[in-house]
């Protein structure tokens, strides 16, 4: 049985019985065939995309006019909201057409940018990973050079990301959120007090297992975890095409509207 098959089985096991397969999946080496940098660490460079549909709703949901059904990406299926936060989510849901930051072309934030339906590109150096998202074309840096979060709370859309390696798993500590981003299209959210821990690991050379654990006592009664797989986009000559979504509302006025110029 190949390493790849083992990894896939581990991944399947995760989906069927979350919890029992987790430790296996994280300690199972992804094998010698994964890309590695000069520092021998796994090299995640490439263009990646989630097929999870998680952006349509992190929790299990049936199809609506908003999007397709999904079995959810959360261990335990349900986000453990505090009562007041659950009310806030209901308000978010009711107002989602105008209140979802995505519909205002705002930066999606972390981790929503990872499992959004558009691709993102990872550029990697020993000192950091540069994540370029297609939607809005913003860049997130994951520092892997031993530096720490800056002092104080800073309101970042994408958070402040400091990573380190645990074997072949990149573990990223993310703080300093602005609390304005949503987690999906149906109003799931976090506060600026969120402490997110990501775990990035190869399943095989073209698949990344992405796990994110949310700790935010203002909003949730306990930490909770989501997991999605990221697939390498393999189309020839594929590139991230800038999607400065926010410019669409005034695109028509520029450049010089030649048809209106007296020639």
């Amino acid at each position, binding site marked *: 049985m190949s390493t790849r098959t083992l990894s896939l089985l581990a991944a399947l096991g995760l989906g069927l019985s979350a919890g029992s397969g987790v430790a296996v999946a994280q300690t199972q080496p992804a094998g010698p065939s994964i890309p590695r940098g000069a520092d021998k660490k796994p090299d995640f460079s490439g263009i990646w995309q989630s097929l999870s549909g998680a952006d349509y709703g992190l929790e299990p949901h049936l199809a609506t006019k908003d999007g397709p059904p999904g079995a959810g990406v959360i261990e335990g299926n349900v986000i453990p909201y505090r009562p007041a936060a659950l009310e806030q989510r209901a308000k978010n849901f009711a107002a989602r057409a105008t209140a979802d930051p995505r519909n205002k072309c*705002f930066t999606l934030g972390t981790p929503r940018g990872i499992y959004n339906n558009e691709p993102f590109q990872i550029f990697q150096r020993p000192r950091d990973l*540069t994540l370029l998202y297609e939607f809005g074309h913003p860049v997130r840096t994951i520092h892997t050079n031993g530096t*720490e979060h800056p002092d104080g709370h*800073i309101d970042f859309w*994408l958070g402040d990301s400091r990573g380190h390696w645990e074997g072949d798993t990149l573990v990223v500590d993310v703080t300093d959120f602005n609390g304005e981003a949503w987690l999906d299209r149906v109003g799931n959210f976090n506060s600026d007090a969120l402490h997110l821990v990501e775990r990035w690991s190869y399943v095989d050379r073209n698949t990344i297992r992405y796990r994110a654990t949310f700790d935010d006592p203002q909003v949730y009664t306990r930490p909770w975890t989501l997991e999605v797989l990221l697939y390498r986009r393999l189309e020839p000559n594929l590139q991230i095409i800038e999607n400065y979504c926010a410019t669409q509302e005034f695109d028509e006025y520029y450049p010089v509207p030649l048809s209106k110029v*007296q020639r």
Partner: protein
Amino acid sequence: MDMRNRFQLRRRPVPAVLLGALAVASVIAPDVASAQGARAWRESSFVPTPQGEWNGPRLPDGQPDVSGHWSNTIGNHNNLTDPQGPFGADDEGPPRTPRPNARQPKPRNERAPSRVSDPPDGQVPFQPWARAKQQEFMKYLNNPIKPEYVEPFARCAPGGPSKSFMWHGYEIRQFPGYVVFLFDSGNRVIRLGAQPHLPANLKLWNGDSVGHWEGNTLVVDTTNNNSKARLGRSGEFVSENATIAETFVFDPSGGRFTYNATYTDPTVLTRPFTITIPNRKVTDKDPGDDWNNLTFPAKLAGNQPVGAPPILEAYERVCVEGNGNHGQVVAADDTQQLNKGAEKK
């Protein structure tokens, strides 16, 4: 919006706030950057770096190592052809609110030369109708009675291939096959090697850039330009038929580079023209000035070697809301009326 600690803890405020403030402040006071202490970055003359060999450090993939934080050394985008002068030639231009302490610009021959290095007169070789349009844009910059008069940069749009080098300091990151520019308003990826361009009908704010290294020079072919970004608040522009041949000529010392961009656009121009902009690397010796040098020393873990030079970082570059009305020089209510009026057309 949670404003907690925003101004206490960030040397540079949230860009959305900052952009609005800067856009307004700079329109009113073109020397705002000097007022902020960036005078050391305002050179009145410079010697373009010549193309040649690269004998500086290289990355493992063979590229000259030019990664790091950089900034231009002559000024901002108020005026393309007189970077340290007032708006427009001969002090013509949009009305400005005089400031009590505003410094008078130096005589023209003591200010940095035009960014237009060719033709020799330093002016964009516009066809007559296009020159009239540029004058119109400049005239209405502070009084945008039509939506097309609002400088798109003030709406968090990307600066475009050239004007991005006339604004805040920026970062270059290099990877096998790529040179990536992180600007405060938009980001730009240059793909290296024999890469095909995107289909020609896809027009982008920062274009589609394919490049290669020749000695000390990054040679870039930029197509697919939507040309929606202006070339300065002074109103210069090209059309979406423009192509740009760029060279980034790096001094092997690693401390400077010269940016050259030759625009070809028969729709707007009578002949090609070239923009030239000097740039210098930001070092840990440069004081932070909220404009050219946006870096700060990273917080080091306890196990970092004592005495090692600081690692420079910059804050997240997200022109967050990016949603239109901030940064414009008319009141928000007026702008909303303006946009509503435009929608009715």
